[in-house]
């Protein structure tokens, strides 16, 4: 393996010097890894419910002993899930159904990418707005106990 390929490990996480789609790709990948690692811990955590009420409460107490670290962790997980889901829906529309991409044409100077037209930009910015709004709500709920809807 030569040096040029090794630089890809770190450079692949650098979204600058590309366009908007590269940012969504990088975020999709980072949030995906966060969620996959959380999933392993989460399945193990939920297993403790089979130990009965005493075992479950002890597990919850050990987790809440982490204090604000646990809540900030949950907030990061919530944001990751929101972003990965919303962006994943856009990717399914793009790559499975071919929507939002516009009609193909011959490349013309200055060779702006056809895959990043007006519809794609609207979709990406809409996703960002919705995810940020829901993430703020999740943060108020987790860290301050606010935003609870009582019917």
């Amino acid at each position: 393996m030569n040096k040029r390929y090794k630089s890809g490990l770190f450079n692949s996480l650098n979204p600058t010097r590309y366009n908007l789609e590269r940012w969504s790709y990088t975020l999709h990948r980072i949030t995906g890894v966060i969620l996959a690692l959380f999933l392993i811990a989460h399945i193990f955590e939920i297993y403790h419910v089979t130990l009965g009420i005493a075992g479950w409460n002890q597990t919850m107490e050990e987790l809440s002993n982490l204090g604000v670290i646990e809540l900030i962790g949950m907030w990061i997980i919530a944001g990751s899930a929101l972003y990965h889901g919303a962006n994943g829906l856009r990717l399914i529309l793009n790559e499975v159904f071919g929507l939002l991409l516009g009609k193909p044409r011959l490349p013309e100077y200055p060779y702006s990418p056809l895959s990043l037209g007006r519809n794609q930009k609207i979709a990406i910015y809409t996703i960002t707005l919705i995810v940020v709004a829901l993430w703020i709500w999740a943060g108020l709920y987790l860290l301050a106990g606010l935003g609870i809807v009582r019917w």
Partner: protein
Amino acid sequence: MLLMYALGLIMIFVLTFHLLLVSPLTGRTFAEALSYNYVLHNLTYFQVIFGILLYAATIHGLNGLRIVLIEWLHPGKYQWIINAIIIVLMAMLLALGTYTLIAL
């Protein structure tokens, strides 16, 4: 790839439901949403939905992790090691999750 899209599409519905159960829309605080009775009620009452979520999330998540590891590490002829670790991890997680859902 189609597997990832299909499982992702399933999870958009199932995981939204799962997140709604612990969301502020239930009128509970975060600690109340994690109380033993509420968690037990959800896991038994929506057992099938959580079963679908368990299998979809584990296969989608660990397959994604496998792809990320292969692209970052360029394992070449050692790729089978990554595949083997992922398959063993996947089997362990599915066994543990299935046991949790059935034992309740």
